[in-house]
């Protein structure tokens, strides 16, 4: 709790010309930047707990039904999953470069890196679309016409319920990230950012890296359950 009290470094009266990007109720750009990043980190905490609820359900049912989890997980295409993981880690890299470009004031580079990140995100969503289409064809979508051969149909339907909830929630977060990055790209294109004020880029970066982290956990949990056939 030892954050700086010097948040009000200069005495409020003798402040330099009011910086265009500084909002009225903040005293310095420094304070505004720290407030924004702290706010974003706190939001990411709520997201961790938000996905956490589903991880609890996943963990419980994996312990209760290891055989069903193994059989249902083998239905997923591991190549597509691994490829998607690589794509998303790549988009995290391009996002990091976008933030770095904004920090160093390179407007054009920021726009390019963000568009690259959006492109990789789009690839991920397209691959996801094909995976979902394949599930619909195999009737692996929970609900009245769910079909899963063999005795583990009940728990398998729970697996697919969690699969669609987790990946659906993750995809929704990616679409939101898409919209945010479109706005940021447009702002960067309009040369709105300076090395002193690039907070929106940094914040969307934090959000995007979080979305990547969620997938880093979803991939092994959903795709790599007992590929070695322990629970044959």
């Amino acid at each position, binding site marked *: 709790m030892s*954050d700086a009290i010097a948040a009000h470094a200069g005495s409020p009266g003798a402040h330099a010309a009011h910086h265009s990007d500084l909002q009225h109720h903040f005293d310095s*750009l*420094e304070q505004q930047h720290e407030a924004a990043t702290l706010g974003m980190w706190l939001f990411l905490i709520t997201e961790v707990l938000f996905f956490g609820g589903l991880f609890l359900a996943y963990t419980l049912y994996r312990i209760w039904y290891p055989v069903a989890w193994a059989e249902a997980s083998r239905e997923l295409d591991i190549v597509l999953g691994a490829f998607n993981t690589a794509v998303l880690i790549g988009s995290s890299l391009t996002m990091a470069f976008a933030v770095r470009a904004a920090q160093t004031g390179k407007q054009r580079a920021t726009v390019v890196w963000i568009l690259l990140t959006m492109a990789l995100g789009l690839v991920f969503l397209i691959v996801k679309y094909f995976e979902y289409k394949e599930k619909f064809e195999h009737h692996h979508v929970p609900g009245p016409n769910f079909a899963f051969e063999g005795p583990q149909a009940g728990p398998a339907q729970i697996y697919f319920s969690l699969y669609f909830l987790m990946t659906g929630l993750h995809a929704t977060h990616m679409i939101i990230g898409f919209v945010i990055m479109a706005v940021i790209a447009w702002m960067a294109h309009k040369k709105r950012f300076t090395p002193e004020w690039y907070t929106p880029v940094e914040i969307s970066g934090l959000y995007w890296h979080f979305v990547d982290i969620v997938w880093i956990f979803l991939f092994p949990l959903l795709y790599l359950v007992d590929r070695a056939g322990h629970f044959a």
Partner: protein
Amino acid sequence: MAGHISPKSTYYAIFGALMVLTAVTVAVAFVNLGSFNFPVAIGIAVTKATLVILFFMHAKYSSTLTKMFVGTAFFFLFILLTLSLTDYLSRGFKTYEGGAGGAGYGVRSESSMQSRPATAGEGH
């Protein structure tokens, strides 16, 4: 006023590490470690997530307050998972010597956690 600017080489290094770890986690999934597959997969995922948080999200260079909040998030996630599992994992324990504990569904006694590669095709 700009935050910490990492050199491009750091980013490439972290990217490489993440790709390698992804390959490792896929490879390890095909090795039969019995009930240890789950913890190993989680361990690799946690390592990758830590790398992303520290370097890509600049947590390493941020204020101690940010680091504390990241720790708080995972601490309370840990509480949610472990305290709930104290219920589910101990449902199988016998409540007294003679009785055969056991929930309708759920883990039998703790013996069910042992790992023993099943000899497939056994039985007539």
